[in-house]
């Protein structure tokens, strides 16, 4: 503090700001954290295939950064998903036996190859939360532009259509959210993120995602935490499951054992922390990789406000 004026300024600011006491409640903070996290998942389509693409892409780097010696194939580490599937993938005679080949590194390499072959697919993710605040929705992600369209319904908001449009203008990256709320016949728009204004290392929009991000996968792999947890038949696909622990339970990515494209994301959310079953949130997202048609491209990349909806300020 230099001048008398600055000293007085400091004094006055302290006086101004000392008007009210504040005593936070940890339980309330935790409840808000859960709500916020869950809302973020639904709104951002954090279970969206776009995130899965990132996650699976991360497998590539993780796999190449490791020796690949991460335990035997199909190692089961928990009862929830360790059931060996009776519908194990049937492989052609030219493919090496799964038991010998399916290390994490092997699966990672195959996933990387599969994703390299994806040519602008639109990825549909049918996602559902189970638990006290059950909700469901469908998210479409354009793997070429990164834009998303969400069609969701939950008990708090009702039916909602939302678009997330990524934009770069004058060197600034932003994500524009446009939500159309059917219960009120209103729509609003808000720019949620601008990388040029968010300090490095601060919490970003992706930070709440339960999906295994590339960095997390790499860390998990390096520490031996990323595991192959077994095989399942999911929506007609023979799949291989990868599991990673995280702060609020664990996350799984199930990939088709033939195409090696992700077909399911599963998150057991707060699974171990809250013993009450009604609070035991689980998130399941089923992924479908759709050919790029003009209709799907328009649906995802162009905002279509329903007729008669009124523009309002963002809540």
């Amino acid at each position, binding site marked *: 503090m230099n001048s008398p004026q600055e000293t007085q300024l*400091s004094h006055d*600011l302290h006086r101004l*700001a000392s008007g*009210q006491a*504040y*005593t936070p409640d940890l339980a309330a903070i935790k409840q*808000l954290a859960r709500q916020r996290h869950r809302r973020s998942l639904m709104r951002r389509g954090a279970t969206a295939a776009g995130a899965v693409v990132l996650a699976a892409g991360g497998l590539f780097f993780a796999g190449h950064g490791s020796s690949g010696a991460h335990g035997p194939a199909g190692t089961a580490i928990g009862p929830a998903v360790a059931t060996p599937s009776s519908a194990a993938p049937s492989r052609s005679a030219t493919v090496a036996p799964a038991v010998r080949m399916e290390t994490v590194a092997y699966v990672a390499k195959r996933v990387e190859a599969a994703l390299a072959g994806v040519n602008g697919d639109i990825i549909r993710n049918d996602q559902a939360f189970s638990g006290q605040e059950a909700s469901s929705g469908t998210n479409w992600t354009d793997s070429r532009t990164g834009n998303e369209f969400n069609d969701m319904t939950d008990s708090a908001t009702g039916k909602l259509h939302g678009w997330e449009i990524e934009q770069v203008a004058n060197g600034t990256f932003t994500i524009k959210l446009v939500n159309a709320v059917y219960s009120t016949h209103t729509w609003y728009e808000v720019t949620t993120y601008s990388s040029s204004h968010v300090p490095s290392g601060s919490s970003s929009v992706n930070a709440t995602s339960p999906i295994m991000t590339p960095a997390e996968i790499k860390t998990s792999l390096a520490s031996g935490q990323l595991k192959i947890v077994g095989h399942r038949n999911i929506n007609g696909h023979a799949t291989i499951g990868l599991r990673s622990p995280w*702060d609020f*339970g664990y996350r799984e990515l199930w990939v088709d054992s033939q195409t090696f494209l992700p077909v399911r994301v599963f998150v057991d959310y707060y699974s171990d*922390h809250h013993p009450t079953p009604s609070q035991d949130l689980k998130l399941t997202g089923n992924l479908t990789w759709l050919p790029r048609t003009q209709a799907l491209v328009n649906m995802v990349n162009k905002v279509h406000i329903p007729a008669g909806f009124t523009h309002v300020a963002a809540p």
Partner: protein
Amino acid sequence: MRRTENVMNGRDEEFGEFMRDRASPLHQSAYLLCGDWHLAHDLVQDTLAKAYLHWPRVRRADSPDAYVRRILLNEVRGRWRGRERTATVSRFPEGREPVSPDAADELARRAGLLQALHALPLRQRATIVLRYLEGMSERETAAVLGCSEGTVKSQSARALGTLRSYLDRTESTR
């Protein structure tokens, strides 16, 4: 399962201690940044919720306090883009103030400060709050704002320039 439970309990204890220590200063900063006690309350709640979600990352930061202050600033920035941009600035602090003539002058002067503060761009306002409420150094302020010390200096200078009428009034009443 039990290991995870223990981890979560440890997290709650650690976060709870941080929260009890830092919540009030955050609340005060939030008030000066947004000008409304109720909004400040919401902002701090949201900030702490976010910090709780990312606590493993926050606690590993060089300065968890600086990290959480960055979250708070992002929260303020987010609100400022929306309807809170039009939120009214409190006319006077809501504390229990004396009402003598001298005190009334003092109240009016500080109310003027609050209004002048809110005429500043958010970054300049944050600089003022961090430097003169929190008593942070230019380096610490730069760390929170995610900019260089030079930027902090220039932002401070501009902000103080804008607050000149308040500062001049301070000088004349001394």
